[in-house]
């Protein structure tokens, strides 16, 4: 019996969606626009996070050692570093090599070095990260571990850049959510008003249902289904448009942006993000309906 009633209610919701297709399409477009804004900012933020990760992978990390450290101790530290799952390769840079590198990179400062009695550069171990996604937290934890080993004096790692990239990514995400929240709120009210109009247009029918013995739930459910479908279709449309944008962007706009291309590129959403956006659309639509129905359907 419940199955039959549900089938009737879904059919009724379908009829309503079709009968009032003009205003329902308008709601779908509004919700789709709102979720497209969130989606675009998420895609931008994904790209910045990705760039940050790439940057951290390409950076070398130098562990400066005590110049009196015996070779076997140096080997031990080297082994500890290479044993980490984050590290791809480690090379030993002797004091002489460090000095030679300095001479090569800064020939104008050669005189200063010549005037020094001893080599000021400590020996170091230079490590490179593996080619995979590594979080900044993991890198920091790894550095802290190595730093604690006896014989390791200091660490040089261009953490600033990675941190900047990651905070920019967080900022973009926050702006996206802020703007998205405003748009979602707007679409919530628009859906609520559209469903309210639908309720009003079907006032006569609702009255009849009520008088022939329909329960409040029976009257309300088709409107809730309508809101759910509007929200769901809206968010699916947003994801589809976003998918097209991520495909079209590099082809048509990427070239014109030059160096900025990499920074403002759209990285496809993750499956988790897509699921959240779809669920968000469906929830916004349903809540918009619930508000309209409970306010205007005092049955």
């Amino acid at each position, binding site marked *: 019996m419940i199955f*039959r009633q549900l089938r*009737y209610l879904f059919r009724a919701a379908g009829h309503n969606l079709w009968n009032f297709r003009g205003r329902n399409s308008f709601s779908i477009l509004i919700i789709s626009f709102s979720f497209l804004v969130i989606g675009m900012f998420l895609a931008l933020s994904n790209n910045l996070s990705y760039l940050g990760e790439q940057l951290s992978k390409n950076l070398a990390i130098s562990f400066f050692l005590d110049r009196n450290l015996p070779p076997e101790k140096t080997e031990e530290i080297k082994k500890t570093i290479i044993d980490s799952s984050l590290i791809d390769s480690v090379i030993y840079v002797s004091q002489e090599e460090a000095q030679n590198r300095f001479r090569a990179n800064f020939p104008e400062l050669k005189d200063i070095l010549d005037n020094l009695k001893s080599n000021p550069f400590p020996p170091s171990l230079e490590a490179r990260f593996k080619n995979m996604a590594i979080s900044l937290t993991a890198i920091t934890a790894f550095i802290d571990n190595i730093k604690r080993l006896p014989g390791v004096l200091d660490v040089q790692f261009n953490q600033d850049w990675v941190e900047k990239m990651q905070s920019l990514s967080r900022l973009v995400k926050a702006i996206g959510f802020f703007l998205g929240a405003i748009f979602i709120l707007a679409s919530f009210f628009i859906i609520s008003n559209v469903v309210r109009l639908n309720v009003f247009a079907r006032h006569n*029918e609702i*009255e*009849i249902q009520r*008088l*022939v*013995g329909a329960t409040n739930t029976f009257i309300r459910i088709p409107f809730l289904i309508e809101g759910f479908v509007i929200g769901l279709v809206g968010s699916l449309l947003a994801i589809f448009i976003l998918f097209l944008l991520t495909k079209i962007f590099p082809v048509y706009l990427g070239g014109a942006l030059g160096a900025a291309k990499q920074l403002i590129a759209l990285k496809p959403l993750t499956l988790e993000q897509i699921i959240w956006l779809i669920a968000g659309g469906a929830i916004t639509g349903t809540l918009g309906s619930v508000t309209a129905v409970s306010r205007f359907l005092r049955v």
Partner: protein
Amino acid sequence: MIELYHIWKQYQKPYWALSDVTLEIDSGEFCFITGPSGSGKTTLLKIIFREILPTEGQILIDRINILKIPDHKIYKLRRLMGIVFQDFRLMFHQPVFSNVAIPLQITGLPDKEIRRRVFNSLRQVNMHHKMWEFPSRLSYGEQQRVAIARAIVNHPKILLADEPTGNLDPELAFEIMTIFKEINDQGATVIIGSHDRELIRHFGHRIFFLQKGKIVGQEMKP
């Protein structure tokens, strides 16, 4: 079965639509409420199916005080009843079939059973051939017959009808009354608000006379 005690209804001060109406209708009765226009017939029927609440008084149906039924449970009372509204209250963007089927669909009956019952009801009012027409394309009298079909489709225990023959020619009005009588013979209580004296004289088992919101008399035919 239906007991009304000291019912008063006021829409607007200082006029009383109903004044101290007390009446009892037994189960299985076939009765008319009659009186001139504006005498309170529609108000009285609306109070019985609780579309409106009285200003004062109590109504018992099957010993249950219907004024104390919470709003969310009122559907149980309405499912016992079939109602023919004076203004028909049809859904104009849905075909005749859907209009008549609605009291059955809300109870979750199987589609096959709904189709059978709807067809039978429409056949009773001679509208089965227009099952897929939209009410807007029907005449006034045909719309009224659709409203009657909807009221009888769920075999109600109580049938309330407000001027059910108002727009029908005498022959069809007589047929409709015969249908109501058949439903009554099957055990339903039938209450009809009408001022058609000819029909009342012919069918009325019990007649309540309303005037200016007061019961001014009643008549019982053997």
